[in-house]
C-alpha cells in the first residue's frame, strides 16, 4: 500500500522528508510513462479531476491536465473568467458546487494566499494547491527538487541561490521550505525592496548582490520579474534591474563550474536572465517543465490512486 497520508497538498510546509522522497521516487516511474510511445496508463480510470484556475497559467495548467490524462483520469478545466466567480459567487460556494458533482480532486490556482486552505476545510474532495497568492506553489518546488536530484544525484548539502522578488514569490517560498527540509543550504538574493522582512527566519542566508550570492553555488534559481506589477515601486526601470540584478554569463563565473540554472518560467529574456544563459548547456529550464508532468502524475496518483503496482 501507499504510504502517503494526506487528503490535500496545500503546501511544502505539511510534507515530511519521507513524503517528499516518496513523491520524487514515484515521479521517476511516472517519468518513464511519459517517454513511452503510448503515454497512458489506466491508474486513475474513473477518477475525476477539476482544474480550477482562478489566475492565468499556461505551464502549470497544461502540466496538470497532461498528468491527469496520462493516468486516464477525466479532467475538466475552468478559469475564473468563464466561471460563476466572475458573476460574484463566493469561492466557497463555487467549491461546494463543484463538490456536488463528486470530483475526486480539485487543482486550485488562486490569487489569494490561503485560498486552497479555505476550501480544503469545506469540501471532502482532495485539493492540490497549484499556486496561492504569494504563499506557496508546492508542485513547482517538488518538480524543482526532482530536477535537482536528477541532475546532481542528491539534494542534501547542495548550495542554492534564489534570485529575484523573494517577497512576492510563491515559488521561492515553497522552494525554500522544500530545500531546507531536504538539507540544502539556501541563499536568497535581490534588491532590498524584494526581500521580505525577517527573511532569515525562513532559514536562509540573505545576500542582496546576486554576483556575491552566486559564489560557489551548485544551483542558481532565477525568478521571474513581474514587469506589469512591480516596476516603479520595487525597482526604478527594467533597464536598471537587469543591469544590477540580471544574471548573465559574466555573473555566473563565480558559481561552481557545474552549476545549473533554473527558472520557473515564463522568462523575461534580457531582464532577469540573459538569453545566452537561458539557452546554455547549464540551463535545465526545459527539463523542469518535462519533470513537472511526472511530478504531478506522482501526486495525483499518491492522493487519489490505488495500489502502487497499478502503474505497471
Amino acid at each position, binding site marked *: 500500500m501507499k504510504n502517503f497520508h494526506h487528503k490535500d497538498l496545500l503546501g511544502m510546509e505539511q510534507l515530511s522528508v519521507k513524503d517528499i522522497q516518496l513523491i520524487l521516487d514515484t515521479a521517476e516511474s511516472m517519468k518513464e510513462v511519459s517517454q513511452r510511445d503510448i503515454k497512458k496508463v489506466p491508474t486513475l480510470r474513473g477518477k475525476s479531476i477539476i482544474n480550477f484556475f482562478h489566475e492565468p497559467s499556461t505551464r502549470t495548467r497544461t502540466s496538470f491536465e497532461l498528468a491527469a490524462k496520462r493516468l486516464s483520469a477525466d479532467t475538466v478545466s475552468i478559469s475564473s473568467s468563464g466561471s460563476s466567480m466572475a458573476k460574484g459567487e*463566493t*469561492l*466557497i460556494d463555487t467549491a461546494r458546487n463543484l463538490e456536488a458533482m463528486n470530483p475526486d480532486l480539485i487543482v486550485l490556482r*488562486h490569487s*489569494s*494566499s*490561503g*485560498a486552497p*486552505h*479555505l476550501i480544503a476545510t469545506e469540501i471532502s474532495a482532495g485539493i492540490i494547491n497549484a499556486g*496561492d*497568492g*504569494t*504563499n*506557496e506553489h508546492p508542485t513547482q518546488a517538488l518538480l524543482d527538487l526532482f530536477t535537482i536530484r536528477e541532475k546532481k544525484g542528491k539534494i542534501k548539502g547542495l548550495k542554492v541561490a534564489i534570485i529575484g522578488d523573494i*517577497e512576492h514569490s*510563491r515559488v521561492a*517560498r515553497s522552494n525554500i521550505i522544500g530545500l531546507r527540509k531536504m538539507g540544502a543550504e539556501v541563499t536568497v538574493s535581490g534588491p532590498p525592496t524584494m526581500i*521580505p*522582512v*525577517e*527573511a532569515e*527566519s*525562513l532559514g536562509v542566508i540573505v545576500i542582496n548582490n546576486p554576483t556575491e550570492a552566486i559564489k560557489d553555488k551548485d544551483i542558481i534559481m532565477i525568478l521571474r520579474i513581474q514587469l506589469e506589477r512591480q516596476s516603479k515601486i520595487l525597482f526604478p526601470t527594467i533597464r536598471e534591474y537587469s543591469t544590477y540584478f540580471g544574471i548573465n554569463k559574466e555573473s555566473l563565473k563565480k558559481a561552481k563550474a557545474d552549476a545549473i540554472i533554473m527558472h520557473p518560467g515564463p522568462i523575461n529574456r534580457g531582464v532577469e536572465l540573459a538569453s545566452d544563459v537561458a539557452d546554455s548547456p547549464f540551463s535545465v529550464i526545459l527539463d523542469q517543465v518535462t519533470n513537472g508532468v511526472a511530478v504531478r502524475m506522482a501526486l495525483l496518483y499518491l492522493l487519489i490512486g490505488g495500489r502502487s503496482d497499478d502503474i505497471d
Partner: protein
Amino acid sequence: MTILIKGGDLVDPLKGFTKKQDIILEGGRISRILPSGIFKEVGPEISIIDVSGKLIMPGMIDMHVHLREPGHEYKETIATGSLAGVVGGFTGLACMPNTDPVNDNVSITEFILKQANKAGKLRVYPLAAITKGRKGETLTEFGDLKKAGAVGVTDDGSPVVNSEIMRRALEYAKYHNLAVISHCEDMYLSLGGVMHEGVISTRIGLKGIPSASEEIMVTREISLARLTGCPVHIAHVSTVGSVKAIRRAKEDGLPVTAETAPHYFSLDHTEVLGYNTNAKINPPLRSPEDVLAIKMGLADDVIDVIATDHAPHNRLEKNVEFDKAAFGIIGLETALPLTLALVREGVLTLQAAIKKLTYSPASILGISCGILQEDSIADLAVVDPECEYVFKEEDIMSRSKNSPFIGKKLKGRNLLTIVGGQIVWSRESENIGC
C-alpha cells in the same frame, strides 16, 4: 424602587481600593455606600440583592464600538449591540460614525440616540465624524453635533490625512469640548496589507502592515497636540513604537491620551496562522514584543483606556479568502475576562484595570459616569471574577460572531448590569451558568 446590593466587594477605581461595602440605589442614583452589614432597615419597598463573594464595580464604558446602525443592520443594530454590551458588563457605549450614512450631521446623531432609547438597555454616546463623509476634506458642524448629543469626533477607520485639517479639528473641537479620537495609520504604508508585517507574514505569504504605519501617525498627532495645546486621543494602540512615543509625549506634559483593545494584549500575530480571518483586524495583531509593550504601557498608565473596537461582521464577510475578508472582531462580551487576566498576571491592580474600563474613558469623553460614590449615577455591574468557562459561539448576543476567542477558556464574568438604578440584565434571570 430602592435596591440594596449587599455582601459584595466594592471596587472604587477612583479612590483605588476594593472593600466589602453595601450599596443602596434610589431614584436612579447611588444614595448610600456603607460598610457591609450596617444597613438593617428592610421593608417590602426595598429589593435586596445578595452578591457575597462578587465584585461590585461601576458599569463599564466602551469608548470604541461599532454599532453599525444606520446602514449595516445585518452586522449589528443599536439594540443587539446594546444587549451584547450589558451582557458584557457595559453601561455606556460610544459608537463610531462609520455608519451608512456617516454620522456627520445632527439628524444621524439624533437617530442613533432615538434607537438607543428604544433599545432601552444602556447609554449610547454618539461619536461624530471629524470631516463630512469621513473624507478628510471639510469639518463637520461640531457645535450642532455636540448640542445633539455627540461626545467626540473621529474619522475612525481612516486617519485625517491632511495635517492642516487635523490641526484645525483639534483647535475647533477643544472650543466645543469634544474629544478628538485619531485612528493612526499611514495609508500608503499599509496599502494592501492584511496582517502585521513580520515573521508570520513572511512565512505565510500575506502582505504586511508595518508597525511604522501606525507610529508615523501617532507621532504626527503628538506634534499637533504640541503645536495646538489641544487634547488628542489615540485609538487602538498596538505597537512598541506607539507606546514609546506616547510615553514621551506624556512626560512632556502634552494632552495626549490613548487606548488599546483587549486583543492587543491577549493575542499576537501567530493567531493568523491557518489564515484565520477572525484574527484579521486593523491595526493587526502584532508580535509578542508588541504585546509585552502594550502591557507595560497599561501598567505605567501610558495607555489610559481599554476599549474593545467591537467591530461586528457577518459570516459572509469573514468566511472568504483572507485578503478579501473584512477587518475587525467583536469584543463587548470578552473585554472583562481578558482584562481580569491582566490582573491575575500582575500587570494591573484590580482597581487600575477597572479604571481603564470605567472612569478613564468617561473622563476623556466628558461623561459623568464610571464612578461609585454617593449621589453618582447608579450604573454598575456585579462581576464574578472566579467564574471559568469556555466562550461559545452560541453564547454570543451580538448579531455577529466574529471572535477569535470562541472556544477559548475565559475567567471572570458579568452577572448583573444596572443602568440608572434599573436592572437591565442579569445572568440569573437568563438562567445561564455562572
